[in-house]
């Protein structure tokens, strides 16, 4: 196990306690009612979770990616809905401004988000542009003093609770992935509205909505990054978000594993705890091993990012391995629990539903394999 620094251990202890005492008691309820946990998010804001990896001069806590990853893991261990709300805000809402924003943009947009005064979201996906971001149809036309935007985005996490949304739009027709730029927008701007609210299989306490732009004016100062350096580079750096999906998956898997371990020791059949049956022991052993491997991959990617090294391949590996682990582990967790694992009285079936998203969001498993292959073959 790689050795954690004192501050990482402290973040883990604090996040775990907060997760157990504040997040966990709301988890079943927000899932059942499809309710956004505004109360929990407010508490997270007060404690500095929402600006965790950003410098203090922008209102953040000044910690690093690894500390942030550990916090996402601990929170997702008890409630994936709260985990994705945090991860989408930090990695996707704040991430692009932090990585590509000008000093002015950071003061104006990152500061309130990192302080936890405003939530952030990121809109890339459209009905015609999922894995293939090059299919982006949302159009930004140059007008006096800025851009006029028309189009819509779907499945946007935090979309209706965010004050600031970073989104992509086509500035030059044709040209595939080139000719696409990113903008940041105050959601109070006329011409912007929230469309359809999704009803989901899992992560039901998180906010997932459609964003609609109708002749929405975006000031020219809200363009993020240099359009000439290309949209592809922009997406590459968003690999940071993949590490946080890996952390969520790791947390979900751990939650299911810990419940299973306890249950197996207590549940008695044929006169002994089911943990004595080899079939059950082997499942627990396999769970523990896959979780440990996931953790090493996820933490490694975070450490590389913090060290300023290349981490695209490692982020994809971490996300892919951890997300498949979370699905395997939550499936086996239901198996170990038997009938009660299928019931909504226990959190196991919820964890299984939550785990599935890990293989889809921020690049499907297929896309991760494409990325890893491209990185190792270097043939495109």
């Amino acid at each position, binding site marked *: 196990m790689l050795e954690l620094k*004192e*501050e990482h*251990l*402290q*973040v883990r202890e*604090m996040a775990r306690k907060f997760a157990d005492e504040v997040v966990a008691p709301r988890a079943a309820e927000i899932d059942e009612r499809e309710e956004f946990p505004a109360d929990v998010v407010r508490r997270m804001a007060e404690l500095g979770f929402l*600006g965790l990896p950003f410098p203090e001069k922008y209102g953040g*806590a000044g910690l690093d990616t690894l*500390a942030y990853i550990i916090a996402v893991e601990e929170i997702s261990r008890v409630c994936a809905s709260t985990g994705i709300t945090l991860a989408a805000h930090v990695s996707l809402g704040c991430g692009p401004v932090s990585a590509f924003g000008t000093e002015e943009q950071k003061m104006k947009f990152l500061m309130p988000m990192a302080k936890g005064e405003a939530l952030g979201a990121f809109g890339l996906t459209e009905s015609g542009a999922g894995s293939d971001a090059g299919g982006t149809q949302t159009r930004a036309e140059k007008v006096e003093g800025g851009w006029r935007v028309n189009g819509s985005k779907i499945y946007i996490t935090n979309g209706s609770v965010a004050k600031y949304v970073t989104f992509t739009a086509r500035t030059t027709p044709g040209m595939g992935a080139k000719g696409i730029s990113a903008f940041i927008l105050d959601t109070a701007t006329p011409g912007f509205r929230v469309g359809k609210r999704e009803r989901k299989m899992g992560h039901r306490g998180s906010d997932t909505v459609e964003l609609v732009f109708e002749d929405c004016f975006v000031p020219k100062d809200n363009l993020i990054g240099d359009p000439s350096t290309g949209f592809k580079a922009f997406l590459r750096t968003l690999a940071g978000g993949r590490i946080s999906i890996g952390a969520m998956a790791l947390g979900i898997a751990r939650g299911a594993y810990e419940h299973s371990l306890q249950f197996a020791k207590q549940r008695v059949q044929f006169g002994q705890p089911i943990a004595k049956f080899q079939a059950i022991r082997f499942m627990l052993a396999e769970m523990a091993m896959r979780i440990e491997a996931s953790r090493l991959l996820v933490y490694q990617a975070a450490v590389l990012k913090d060290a300023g090294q290349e981490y695209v391949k490692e982020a994809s590996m971490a996300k892919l391995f951890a997300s498949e682990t979370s699905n395997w582990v939550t499936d086996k967790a239901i198996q170990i629990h038997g009938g009660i694992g299928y019931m909504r009285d226990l959190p196991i079936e919820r964890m299984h539903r939550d785990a599935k998203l890990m293989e889809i969001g921020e690049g499907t498993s297929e896309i991760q394999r494409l990325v890893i292959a491209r990185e190792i073959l270097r043939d495109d």
Partner: protein
Amino acid sequence: MLQVVCIKQVAGSETRVKVAGDGKHLDTAGVTWILNPYDEFALEEALRIREKMGEGEVVAVSIGDAGVPTTLRNALAMGADRAIHLKSDVPSPDPLAVARALAAEIGPLAPRIVWFGRQSIDDDQAQVGPMTAELLGLPGASMIATLEIDGDRAVVEREIEGGREVMEMQLPAAFSADKGLNEPRYPSLKGIMAAKKKPIEEKPAQLGEPNLEVLSLELPPTRSAGRIVGEGKQAVAELVRLLREEAKVI
């Protein structure tokens, strides 16, 4: 206003306790250490007093081995201004030795309030607080449930059997905090970063000669499995007979 909070690092409650080979101490291998929960109430109250007054300093003091700074760092992350680590490798020194070492350090600092938790959750002796207060010559109240400060006067309430006791005393004074005095805060993430820059002073603990000796430490016997004596009404007579004759509890 200077306040000193005495804190202890203890084994977390989920730790599976093992007795060391000498049969006198805890085996510390694999133990997860935490800040004694009762000390958290004491620290929280000290922080609230400092915040309410808008001035002052809160100093955390702890006696122990090389692992103690981690726990002191947690106290700093919660908001203590600085910390003092009184170094000692003696495993679980006796309460009077601890009180002497604390008093020797705290006395010259001349704090207005010295804080303790009501007891540590490992040894459960609840002696260090009162003993230290005595050695410092301070009025003290243990296991306090509320505290009001007005100038030089402090009014405390204590939960006692069947009621509440209200006491008034002059500051400086020593208090030990009971559960429920407040709800301790989580260290904030900024607090965790800030703690990295706060000083932890290291000094040897002046424990002196031991005052008592632990002869043995034993785990409680493992509970034997229960027994089902029968079902329904007809089992009651047999159960009563066994409780009386075998278990001898009625």
